[in-house]
């Protein structure tokens, strides 16, 4: 997994490439928490190049979203492939995140 961080006005966009799995989830978590500490509050995690997220990857997303909310921020997700969308729907995790089809859609009203 790789990820790239960009800024668009006050929104931090994290683009995840590759799988988000048990072996690398900590890396993502540490980085986002670091950015949160530095004052970022709005996060968009973009998965356009992610084929697969395992359950511990989901766990990290849930915990990050919780921590961001606690600080008065928000985390959105975008560009999940069909499998991942199904995964979020079937587990009802889609009720906990704002999931957008595209990056632009996610940025609307953020």
């Amino acid at each position, binding site marked *: 997994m790789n990820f790239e961080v960009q800024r668009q006005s006050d929104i931090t966009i994290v683009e995840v490439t*590759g799988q988000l799995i048990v072996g690398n989830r900590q890396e993502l978590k540490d980085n986002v928490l670091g950015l949160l500490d530095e004052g970022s509050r709005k996060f968009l995690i973009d998965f356009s190049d992610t084929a697969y997220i395992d359950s511990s990857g989901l766990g990290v997303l849930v915990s990050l979203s919780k921590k961001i909310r606690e600080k008065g921020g928000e985390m959105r997700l975008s560009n999940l492939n069909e*499998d991942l969308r199904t995964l979020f729907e079937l*587990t009802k995790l889609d009720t906990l995140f704002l999931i957008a089809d595209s990056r632009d859609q996610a940025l609307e009203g953020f």
Partner: protein
Amino acid sequence: MQGRQAGSGSALIVTQQPDLATELTRAVEGLGFAASVISALDHIEAHADARPALVLTDIALRPTLEQWTSLAQLFPRSALWAVADPTDSNIRDVAYALKAGCHDCLSLPVTSEQLGKKLEGIGRPLGVKPGELDRYMSNEINLELPSDLSIIEHVVRLLAGCCRDYRSYGPRKLVSLRIALSEALSNAIQYGNRGDRSKLVRLRASVNAWTCRVQVTDEGPGFDHSRLPDPTSTEAIESSGGRGLFLLTQLADDVAFNETGNSVTVTLNSDWEAAVVGESIRPVSSDAEALIGLVERVRLGTDADIHLWAENLDGSLEHIAPEDQALAQPDGTLHWLRTPGIRYAVQVWPANEECSERWAEFTRDLLDEALTYEMRLAESRRELAERQEEIELLHSITETLGAVDRLEDATSQILKGVLRVTGAERASLWVYEPDTESLVLAASEGPSRRPANRVSISSPFSVSALAFRENRTVRLDELDALPPELAARFGERPEPWVAVPVTYTSPDGSSRPVGVLNLIGRRSGALVSGFGEARLLMTLARQIGNSLENLRLLEEILSRERVIGELELAYELQMKLLPDLRLFDEVADVAARCVPARPVGGDFYQLFKLSDGKIGAMLGDVTSHGFGASLIMALSMSVMGIYARETTSPGELLRAIHGALIQKLESTEMFMTVFYGVIDPARRMMTYANAGHAHSFRIHGDEPPQRLRATSPPLGIADFGGYDEASIPWEPGDLLCLFTDGLTNPTLRTNERAVLEAIEAHRALSAPRIVDAIFEARQEQGGEAPDDQTAFVLRLERSR
């Protein structure tokens, strides 16, 4: 200092808190003791003459090991107790104190009555340190604990540490002890005291080299343990104690309850032969052994006469060295050597004129020094052993389980480096798997476009397979050198692509291919353009091959040498937790299979016979896998075993589980998907609650599978009000099919479809056959399955 009274009539109180000093003074004076209060342990030796019967130390002072040791040396015959405020104190401090030499811990409030009882309870002459005559002989621990699940871990560690010190409890025994004790404590806290923090759990443990006996008493009303049936019988599955007691009786050598049922005594025997117990072997402490050895050496080296006595409880002296000259009593000047538990008397007679009194003095000092050294050595040995056990039993399991991740991490690091050096856009590493004669994707870096992660080495369409087969570098831009199938696949102007065989050169110089490295694309503006350099690539590939092979060997060694014993045990224990489905033969056609990704996993299933002929079926999946998940899984199973009988509402059951596990789940960042359905054959209905479990289906007749959708997000995510339920018709012959995402990863929809097709094709067969079909279908799909795989199939009426 008030009342400087000698003998057993005084108590020393050490605290900085005036209120506590007043309370303790009142309590000890109520027993007729004279109290002295000091505020620190710094100059404790000034009180050496006081010879108090009791020394009460405020745990808030956090005495160090040295301070406990000097307390024990100064007051070898006093009861050394710590005083702790249960709402305020850290159990770690208490555990540390008990390890360091404190005999017992009192919880506030301390009254004369409580103190009196405690002193009686010792059952020994006042002021004699319990179990400390020889710390290698027996150890007694009394604790009063608040009803808080988080203390369990510390208490268990403390007791396991005590047992381990004897060296007679093997790793298996220690694991059994840990689990049995956790169960006993969590039962007392959750079901005895109902989690009420104001109620206490009393723990009384007595440990020696042969037996560890722990009594756990709660303040609850107790339960009817006389009805506790044979744990393997059908009734046991429905017994009120649930799985916790089942586990307890399985692991402990003896489990006994008091009449009311609020106190359980668990006994575990060490691995020493039972026969040894009968013979009265008195283990000599290592201190004494060391001393005896030293005395012998000095005697042999000089002609001096040295004798050594150990002081007994009653103050009499027992001659212990030299063995062949048992002198009843010493005559003349004695020199005392002190250890935390015991005093030794030494007498040295100069052999002749040259050996003056000064020489005798020197010899005594030498012995004293040697003893101190021996004690320090023993201490560090103990510390080392403690660390070692931590590693052996918990961390190394997690770590070694993580060995697979390490390989992934390492390869991913290697590839990142390769991208940097070569300026390629993407890189992937494929490793040869001899069993299947295929190349398996070990890691890839850069934007991934590759859906497959396994390719047969005989594939004519694969660049990697070609490079591996012919053990040569394949370049896509050299179209002429490619077989026609491949050239056709990539067209006229393929993107830059080089496949390099990765070889391992063994120390004897022979070399063999172990995988293939692919470099694809060229990063725009890449500074380094080593891409086309054949020699650079070959060097890289050789390095990768060697590190891969080393990692693989390391993994092999790790799994062989260190893991197998403990992991097999963990696996066995976990499989023991799952219900024996044969017990349900009469009421249902049911089968399940659980294949953990690592030796232990986080998937589980449960089946309950409920009142009115109802049947409860559950499948759960703790996110992540390995040891951490398995602990959560074990905890969930015990919680469910108890709650399932208390309610027939699935939503309520999930709420109860949520309540019991939320802290643990949140602190570990795990969550759990659970499906729980209660089938009521009389009403032909099933009511279910589904917390985020993706793959739950009803198969009715020839209809397509009906998905039983999640009614709430997974368990352990947050408090969002409650767990909803849904009800559907349930006809005789309907199949309930539940499986976990290990069977559908990594391509959820494709794999789920394959599994469902297998179920549909075999729907008329028995449940075990359907489970077989599910796993076969998954295997045919190929692809790695990095998660636990579990399937559960239930039909109330036998197959048609």
